[in-house]
């Protein structure tokens, strides 16, 4: 009898699981499946496609031909890309430093609850609600030498005698673009920092004050160290955004004057849509992606 039961039990176990979906493991997989499919289709598949594209000569219409690693080797021959790397890094450093400083300044200004503070917080954040391409167009219109209102105003109050070439010289084009980016993003970053500032317990400040700490000491010894995780978040957002800069240069400066404001993504765009070299553009994208992943991993580790 025992033997029979045992046999039957073994037989049941050795059969292919008739109701495998009843096991907890299988159910777990099933629950995760919809998300997995979405992640696969929307995130992983495009990445795989871009990597596959970068290994092929990819015409606009018609079938691709495998040509690896040509698309990667010719990146090195592209002087525009080399210049774009240098320029984008320069832009990233300048933007990140200035944007962080301005955003932190604004956050400190509107940190405490006072009558009317809501107005200032809203006013600082408002540019963040403008689309970036629209903001670039707005600046283009305002600073345009032919019809922009800024030049006549500056001349009227005697600050300048001739129209300023806002996007006419490499340095001014960079300066104007950074101004645009700060105007557009300072309020948004201020908001991030503000949440960080308000998470610092007031007791810490009170204790510091009762110990006789001055304003400067409080800022450097309490506010900044406790704000570190929030600053890290802002830094990562700013660095990533700046390295992927496109709209501001595409709409505002058009890469000019004389290719002085060509960002890395603009080179990708040019290769894909002006030179119809989709494989080459994909290769640059993959390199850019790898660099970004590496940089962000480094930043996260250092700033944690």
């Amino acid at each position, binding site marked *: 009898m025992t033997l029979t039961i045992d046999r039957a039990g073994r037989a049941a176990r050795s059969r292919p699981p008739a109701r495998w979906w009843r096991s907890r493991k299988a159910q777990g997989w099933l629950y995760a499946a919809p998300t997995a499919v979405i992640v696969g289709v929307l995130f992983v598949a495009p990445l795989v496609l871009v990597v596959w594209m970068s290994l092929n000569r990819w*015409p*606009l219409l018609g079938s691709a031909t495998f040509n690896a690693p040509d698309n990667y080797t010719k990146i090195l021959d592209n002087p525009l890309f080399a210049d774009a790397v240098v320029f984008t890094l320069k832009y990233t450093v300048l933007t990140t430093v200035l944007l962080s400083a301005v955003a932190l300044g604004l956050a400190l200004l509107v940190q405490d609850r006072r009558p009317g503070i809501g107005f200032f917080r809203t006013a600082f954040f408002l540019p963040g609600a403008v689309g970036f391409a629209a903001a670039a167009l707005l600046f283009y219109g305002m600073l345009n030498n032919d019809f922009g209102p800024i030049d006549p105003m500056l001349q009227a109050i005697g600050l300048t005698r001739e129209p300023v070439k806002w*996007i006419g010289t490499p340095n001014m084009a960079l300066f104007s673009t950074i101004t645009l980016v700060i105007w557009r993003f300072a309020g948004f970053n201020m908001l991030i920092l503000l949440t960080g500032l308000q998470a610092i317990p007031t007791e810490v400040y009170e204790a510091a004050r009762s110990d006789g700490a001055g304003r400067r000491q409080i800022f450097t010894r309490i506010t900044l160290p406790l704000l570190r995780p929030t600053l890290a978040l802002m830094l990562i957002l700013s660095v990533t955004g700046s390295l992927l800069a496109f709209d501001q240069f595409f709409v505002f400066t058009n890469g000019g004057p004389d290719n002085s404001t060509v960002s890395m993504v603009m080179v990708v765009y040019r290769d894909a849509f002006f030179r119809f070299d989709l494989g080459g553009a994909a290769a640059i994208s993959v390199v850019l992606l790898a660099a970004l992943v590496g940089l962000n991993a480094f930043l996260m580790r250092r700033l944690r």
Partner: protein
Amino acid sequence: MRRRLAGISLLGVLALTAAACGNGGEGGGTQAAAGPVTITMWTRAATQTQSERLVQEYNKTHKNQVKLTVIPTDNYQPRIAAAAGARQLPDVFAADVIFVPNYTSQGLFLDVTDRIAALPFKDKLAPSHMKLGTLDGRMYTLPHTLDLSVWFWNKDLYEKAGLDPEKGPKTLKEFAQQATAVQEKLGKDGKVHGTFFGGNCGGCYVFTFWPSVWAAGAQVMNDEGTQSLNDRPAMLEVFKIWRELYEKKATGPTAKEEQGPTWTGFFPKGEIGVMPMPSTTLGLMPKDMRIGVTPIAGPDGGESTFVGGDSIGIGSTTKNADAAWEFLSWTVGDQAQVEVMAKNKDVLARTDLASNKYSAEDPRVVLINSLVGKGRTPYALRFGQTYNDPQGPWLRYAREAVFGDPAKLPQLNAEITKSLQQ
């Protein structure tokens, strides 16, 4: 219940995925049209007016309809490329004629050789446009609009500056003298300027400067469009004359920054003495403005023009090839050419209709029509990425030549050649 939910959601996602990945079907086919068909058409802003007039007239008089989308000129090439990559090309699209060889070689246009062969006026279609639309003996496009570069001068400003308002420049040197005279006499207020050009716009340079080189009997590229000859004396002399005009501040202070979209906007306001302009702008000038038109000349004479404009073809992914062709063949027919194009002072796509009841009314139109045979449409497979793209090598070259350091020109010219061969 939970299991069922999971199953349903999984099925839903799979169905969605299948739909998203599904192929839009094979392109290029012909659909038997049961009723009126609406076809889509794209055109670039530079020749928007002509396309709009044609589409409006066609829609008024035909059952089939055309839905026109106008795209900013600078963004046109990227939009076409993106649409082609997604197999979503419009049924019909016009393109700057110089980009056509690139498009045909990429297979973006449907082969219409047999359909063109059946047209009674097939040999009278604008030859330069037809040449650029032919690849390996097969034909892909029809001429859509012709846009020639010519010199416009403002007779009122000439009179005020003490110049003969009826005598436009006959050489590039005369052009420079007259522009300088307008600048010196009338430029004090900072509004009126001798001349103007798109100094930060690659396409503007080739359209307005190259005819002076051709007029001098020289070339800018070899016939295959694979070698730049822009470092030869003829081109350098043209650059030198324009450079002097800029240095004398006769070109307006913003010429150096002008990226293209607004370069033709100053002349109609009466602010410019004399400048090269697209012939299509003649029909858009203020009615009361007294304007002279003359061919572009070389430094010491001759005359030529850049025969630009658009060609039009059927997108190779279309499902409405017959309806698309019905529209295209109508646009080059007698009625559309005379009653829509000629009536509005536009250059015609057909040489046999050059003299018509409207052209005789305006000697300027007759002059522009007569230039079609003398001008050129340069051929290069890599034209767009070399000459039109703001990040291309030509714009750097031209800007160094006019505003910067001429010592850099030999090296930059080599880069133009390299780009032409890529």
